[in-house]
């Protein structure tokens, strides 16, 4: 009788612990492949056609400490346009084509994501699998960083005061992981996790540059938070430099 009770209870216990249990993945050290600085390069510019949509203003009056950091009213960063309709914050990466079996070590330095003025800096960025993401709170207010991910384990961590640092890593490639703050609903950031270093984010002039590619045929994808994705195919021989431009239609 006691035995039966214990096996039922034990079974229930095992059911819970074994089913959605959080297991820290133990990564086997990948065989090291050096990225040759002398490899091929893909460069390009991203722009859009049509009228630049107006970015809505953000009313930060509910968070006085953040509002005080802005001399003029801050706006959302949905579409950050530069001169001649250049499109910033486009995540460009090599979607396929990297020779199989090649692995790339994650850099020892972390990518820093700063929460300052109730905004994420940077707004769009890339990180390598296994590389540290150091999240910093530069505001004297509560932010929580909620990572919405499918291939990676989601997380949600709070930083109630200035100076707090939290580090996370991502175990699987994913384009894109959404980051948001639930206390300040306008705060969004987008993070592309890649197994290789072949990615870039366009600046205000819309340009990007991906270096160190081994010879081959690559599909590169440009991702924008509002305008969607576009792909292009580029073939590179050793140390060649090729261009690929993307033009999105504003809607």
């Amino acid at each position, binding site marked *: 009788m006691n035995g039966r009770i214990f096996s039922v209870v034990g079974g229930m216990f095992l059911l819970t612990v074994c089913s959605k249990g959080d297991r820290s993945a133990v990564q086997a050290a990948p065989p090291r492949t050096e990225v040759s600085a002398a490899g091929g390069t893909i460069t390009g510019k991203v722009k859009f056609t049509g009228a630049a949509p107006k970015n*809505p*203003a*953000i*009313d930060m*009056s*509910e968070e006085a400490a953040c509002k005080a950091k802005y001399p003029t*009213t801050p706006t*959302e960063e949905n579409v950050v346009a530069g001169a001649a309709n250049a499109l910033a914050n486009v995540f460009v990466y090599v979607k396929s084509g990297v020779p199989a079996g090649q692995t790339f070590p994650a850099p020892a330095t972390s990518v820093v994501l700063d929460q300052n003025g109730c905004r994420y800096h940077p707004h769009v960025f890339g990180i390598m699998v296994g590389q540290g993401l150091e999240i910093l709170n530069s505001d004297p207010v*509560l932010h*929580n960083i909620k990572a919405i991910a499918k291939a990676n384990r989601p997380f*949600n961590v*709070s930083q109630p005061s200035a100076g707090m640092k939290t580090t996370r890593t991502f175990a699987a490639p994913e384009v894109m992981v959404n980051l948001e703050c*639930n*206390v300040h*609903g*306008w705060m969004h950031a987008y993070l592309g996790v890649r197994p290789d270093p072949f990615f870039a984010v366009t600046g205000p002039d819309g340009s990007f540059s991906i270096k160190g590619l081994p010879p081959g045929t690559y599909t590169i994808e440009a991702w924008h938070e509002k305008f969607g994705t576009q792909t292009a195919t580029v073939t590179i021989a050793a140390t060649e430099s090729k261009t690929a431009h993307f033009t999105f239609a504003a809607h």
Partner: protein
Amino acid sequence: MRWWLPDAGSTFAGPIDTLFLAILIITGIALVIVEVGLITFVIRYRARPGRKAFYTHGSTRAEVIWTAIPAVTMVALGLISNHYWVLIKDKKSVPPNAYHLGVHAKQFEWQVTYPGPDGKLGTADDFTVRNQLHVIVNQPFAVELSSEDVVHSFFVPEWRLKQDAVPGMQITAWFEATKTGEFELGCAELCGMGHYKMRARVFVHTPDEYKAWVAQQAAGGSE
């Protein structure tokens, strides 16, 4: 330092505060009877040499008295309270001239939807503002509460107003603010780690101020 309920700011505050005071007096009397009684007994009936306790098993008369008086008091309290309960919470009590706003709660913000210049909620000129509730003084308002994710609770202390926002339900809560000024709305149901930060500012305007604010919002105000 506050020692009492917040300053009254709505038509509900009068009856609720009066009821509160009435209960305070009733329970206060009961408390004094019990505590003074206990202290008196402790002093008067302490054991001393040569004393004996009075052997009795009780008194039916006493039982009847101290059963009847609390029972009658409780029934009376219930009847009076129910009148105001129905007035505040019953859907039929929402005044027909109430302005309707949509309040959508989510972790961790209040999204308030205003009907816009056409005055009708659910039309194209509606606009949504985060964490700001603007109402008109001496005008009934009804908020249609909904929730994106978990149970939250819409709480404005000065208005003596509280109503849970439950996912999967549309709940109406009405009120009429009686004092202009700026107040606060807090979440009164644990909704996650940011529960404490789920604060909105509440503005009670004169009708003109309100019209001006709505116009400013419709002309491309902020999110």
